[in-house]
């Protein structure tokens, strides 16, 4: 009996076992998946909790109900991967052997990594919304917030769902306006990036949306610490941004067991071939979802597209054939912009998010990088698709590889910045 062991029953891990259980002979292959609990969160839903748009029930289900028959589900914390002996040890002492290992343990916000963040102001004036508990705590704080400085802050890149802090800002602006409080609140967006987003065209489009909403942008700001007395973010170059309410995206890091096992980089992400997702150090280890170091967004859409490539590659690999599929870094994200509207971006390793149309069967084309009601409805509809289609490993009519159909090429986008040296 051959053993496939998957660490992490989140978006990527759940899709993988659903797909591979159908493809691998049950008489020949034992499949086991490990996670630390039995609660599967719909992570994009965390963004909506503080604004009362979604309820608790809509965003958490049990992990086991999304796992197919014929897959062993082990609840436990991973202590160590011993790649030399092909064995994984759990913190309770159990050992799980494997022939092939998939690391799908994701990335996690780590407020402990910034001095002052987890201090006396944590969950008093400092919040995050990337965990269920964090989003719930923030919900209460927002209810009581009626004036002052709201600072939305990214500690460092990369982060899971890099558009979420912008979405939070747009939603907060709309929410405050609706309550007649916007004039009493100053909103500041603080980022280590040179602009609102990573790539020029999207950064320009999203940056002007911050301007339209009178949100101040503090760019190139790398936080060193939080001054708890002054209630201010302090950067390495000694700039200070005071806040009354801070919504921060803490440093994101891969799982600690990755570091303990000597498999990670300085943020605990596992170095892989960016096209096959195979570990650079160990050919029988693959890393899918947010846990790897591939240079694209850490997002569910990326996990989904890459799982499709991984599935075929893995079947070839175990059959002793060459892996012919090559992941292109495809990401496709709805960006909620408030007032019942949203944007859509679609990009990959080589092509930045562009303007234009995104063709979709049945529902018709969606506008790229443009606020529309349809994009908002797409975002809301996606929750149903996630639970009922995506996790189950059923096909979605969106191409795995990014397509240029409908997109305006970068040269045709008038917003492209001029060539300037790194001043």
């Amino acid at each position, binding site marked *: 009996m051959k053993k496939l062991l998957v660490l992490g029953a989140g978006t990527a891990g759940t899709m993988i076992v659903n797909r591979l259980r159908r493809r691998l002979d049950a008489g020949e292959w034992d499949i086991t998946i490990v996670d630390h609990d039995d609660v599967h969160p719909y992570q994009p839903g965390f963004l909506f909790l503080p604004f009362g748009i979604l309820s608790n029930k809509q965003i958490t289900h049990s992990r086991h109900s999304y796992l197919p028959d014929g897959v062993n589900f082990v609840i436990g914390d991973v202590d160590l991967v011993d790649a030399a002996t092909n064995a994984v040890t759990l913190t309770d002492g159990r050992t799980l052997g494997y022939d092939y290992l998939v690391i799908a343990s994701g990335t996690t916000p780590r407020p402990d990594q910034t001095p002052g963040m987890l201090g006396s102001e944590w969950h008093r004036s400092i919040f995050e919304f990337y965990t269920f508990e964090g989003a719930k705590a923030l919900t209460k704080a927002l209810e009581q917030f009626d004036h002052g400085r709201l600072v939305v802050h990214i500690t460092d890149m990369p982060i899971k769902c890099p558009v979420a802090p912008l979405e939070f800002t747009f939603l907060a602006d709309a929410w405050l306006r609706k309550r007649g409080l916007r004039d009493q609140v100053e909103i500041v967006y603080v980022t280590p*990036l040179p602009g609102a987003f990573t790539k020029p065209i999207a950064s320009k489009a999203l940056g002007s949306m911050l301007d339209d909403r009178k949100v101040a942008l503090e760019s190139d700001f790398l936080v060193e610490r939080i001054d708890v007395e002054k209630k201010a973010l302090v950067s390495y170059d000694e700039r200070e941004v005071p806040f009354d309410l801070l919504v921060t995206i803490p440093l994101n890091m891969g799982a600690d067991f990755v570091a303990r096992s000597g498999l990670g980089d300085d943020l605990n992400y596992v170095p892989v071939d960016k096209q096959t997702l195979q570990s650079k150090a160990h050919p029988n280890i693959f890393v899918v979802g947010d846990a790897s170091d591939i240079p694209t967004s850490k997002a569910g859409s990326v996990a989904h597209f890459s799982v499709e490539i991984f599935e075929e590659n893995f079947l070839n690999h175990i059959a002793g054939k060459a892996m012919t599929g090559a992941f292109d870094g495809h990401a496709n994200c709805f960006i909620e912009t408030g007032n019942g509207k949203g944007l859509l971006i679609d990009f990959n390793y080589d092509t*930045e998010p562009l303007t234009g149309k995104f063709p979709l069967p049945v529902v018709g084309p969606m506008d790229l990088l443009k606020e529309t009601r349809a994009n908002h409805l797409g975002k809301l509809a996606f929750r149903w698709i996630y639970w009922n289609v995506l996790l189950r490993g059923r096909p979605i009519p969106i191409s795995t590889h990014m397509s240029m159909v409908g997109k305006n090429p970068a040269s045709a986008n008038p917003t492209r910045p001029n060539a300037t040296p790194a001043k």
Partner: protein
Amino acid sequence: MPVTTLNGHEIHVNEEGFLTDPTEWDEELAAALGAQIGITLTDEHWNAIRFLRKDFAETGETPTLRRVSTVGGIPIKQLFVMFPQKPAKKMAYIAGLPKPVGCV
């Protein structure tokens, strides 16, 4: 990719002025690149630039600030003093390496 000439060196650069071929780099060029962005290279700067070159040769990636700090041993705060405002970008520019992957 555009070709430009700097201090008698013919170099290939991208639209932001970063070298696209790290082998066209040498230390003399680094001084000229530093001057382009108003930085006079001291021993301390060289320490960082040489770490970047060495790490890139080993890993194939431009190291992040975090890595220059944890592996290269130069505190991030110091990097901000030496290469004001945008240390990751400025170091890579002078070292003739691609911009570190800021990630999307």
